[in-house]
């Protein structure tokens, strides 16, 4: 397979299928969440944030959980493969996005329910801590250097960062907090909400799971492309320089005969690179990372 024949988009059949279902789900969630489900007698319209906030928090935990499991798989000598490292990076990044969504939606809800944007409650503080430790993890992933060494460092860091997740999840049970306890999954007890509210909230988990999967698939493709760029960028650059040298030589040649020049035939079958517009653009992108 030549380099040019590989796809340069992060889209695939899987992302298109998952994306289609996600779009349908989002539309259904908007209709159910904003129109069909009734406002709460006490909380009023702000209760609609329950269709965003718990699902975001769950997907944030799922993202960091996948990151930790993939890191263990990378560190385990029998399963060591760079694909696990890429999965860990991609899932952590998507998890961070959902963690931000969780904090923002919670903050908006807190402003209307508690009267403040932020309070130093155990659950809130630990979630903020979770965000910054995983931002540190993502920063560590972007440090460059030998991919295997970087992957090992990142995997150990991911396991250190993941320690915060169970503590954050159990914060409302271990400490007296302002944040309410679990609404749906209460051991031996019925959920605290019923009817359309319960149905819409359950749908929000499904839709956010689809959205998470869609984002993860795209992010994984980007990770694979970046890895390819690191592996093959040098070959592309050499091929382009040789091709340019060859074209320049031909431009000054008198009509009729080639002259000895760079051995173009020795270059791998590399057409126009699928990423970027040329070697310079790739080089700049690498420097900016």
């Amino acid at each position, binding site marked *: 397979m030549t380099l040019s024949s590989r796809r340069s988009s992060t889209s695939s059949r899987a992302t298109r299928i998952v994306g289609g279902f996600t779009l349908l789900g989002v539309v259904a969630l908007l209709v159910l969440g904003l129109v069909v489900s009734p406002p709460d007698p006490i909380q009023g319209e702000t209760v609609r944030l329950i269709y965003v906030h718990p699902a975001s928090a769950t997907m944030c935990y799922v993202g960091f959980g996948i990151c930790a499991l993939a890191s263990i798989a990378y560190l385990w000598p029998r399963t060591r493969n760079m694909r696990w490292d890429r999965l860990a990076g991609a899932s952590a990044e998507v998890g961070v996005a959902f963690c931000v969504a969780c904090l923002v939606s919670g903050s908006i809800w807190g402003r209307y329910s508690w009267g403040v944007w932020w309070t130093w409650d155990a659950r809130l503080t630990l979630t903020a801590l979770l965000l910054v430790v995983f931002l540190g993890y993502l*920063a560590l992933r972007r440090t*460059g250097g030998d991919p295997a060494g970087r992957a090992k460092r990142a995997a150990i860091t991911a396991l250190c960062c993941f320690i915060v997740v169970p503590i954050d999840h159990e914060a409302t049970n271990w400490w007296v907090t302002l944040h309410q306890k679990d609404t749906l999954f209460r051991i031996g007890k019925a959920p605290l909400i019923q009817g359309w509210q319960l149905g819409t909230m359950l749908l929000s988990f499904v839709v956010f799971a689809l959205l998470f999967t869609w984002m993860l698939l795209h992010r994984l493709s980007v990770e694979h492309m970046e890895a390819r760029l690191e592996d093959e960028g040098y070959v592309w650059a050499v091929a382009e320089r040789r091709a340019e040298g060859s074209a320049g030589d031909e431009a000054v040649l008198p009509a009729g005969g080639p002259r000895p020049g760079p051995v173009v035939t020795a270059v791998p079958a590399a057409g126009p690179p699928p990423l970027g517009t040329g070697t310079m653009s790739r080089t700049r992108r690498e420097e900016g990372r």
Partner: protein
Amino acid sequence: MWRDALLVAGKDLRVEARSRVTTNQVAPYALVVLLLFGFAFNQDRYVLTHVGPGLFWIAVLLCALLAVQRSFSLESADGARDGLRLSGLDGGGIFLGKAMAIAAQLAVLEVILALGVVVLFGTRMADPLLLVVTCALATAGLAAAGTVYGVMAAGLRVRETLLPLLLLPVLAPVLLGATQAWLAAIGLATGSGWRWLTLLAAFAAIYLTLGVLAFGTLLEEA
């Protein structure tokens, strides 16, 4: 492993004793931080007395950051890290040795900072036994976590900016537990201060175990 640890700790402490960076630079920096806290809180004695324990531990955290950076920058020149890798010393031993050296420096800095908060902020030093045990456990946790993250960032070009981002959030439980224990000791927090020691001990145990297990691998990749 313990023999290797003592060798490495002795090496790091000898370098510090000869270069006097901790005493000539980090200790004065710690006092500058305390003075700046005083300016920031408008020299309000009441506020400073009440937030003194928290400010003390923030100053310790900032000093720990410098101590960790210093501990690994020592070995970045002249291929010293390669020498350490090739020395045949046990990875866990190197970790414990470096952590012990950092802990010893932090202990000295904590004494200086404690004198600073007592004199400058008027913070009381009640229940000395609780304070000493708190300092011992917190220092063990700071040194262990600092050494783990220090070696992760050691070989990177961006280590100076990356290390605070990685390390400071991770050290938040130490800041919380140690501050609450001290506040309880001087009667400014409800409940017994001793229960916070569980958090500090668990933190130190987790990072000491992690460091002993993973340091060799991390040093290979640094």
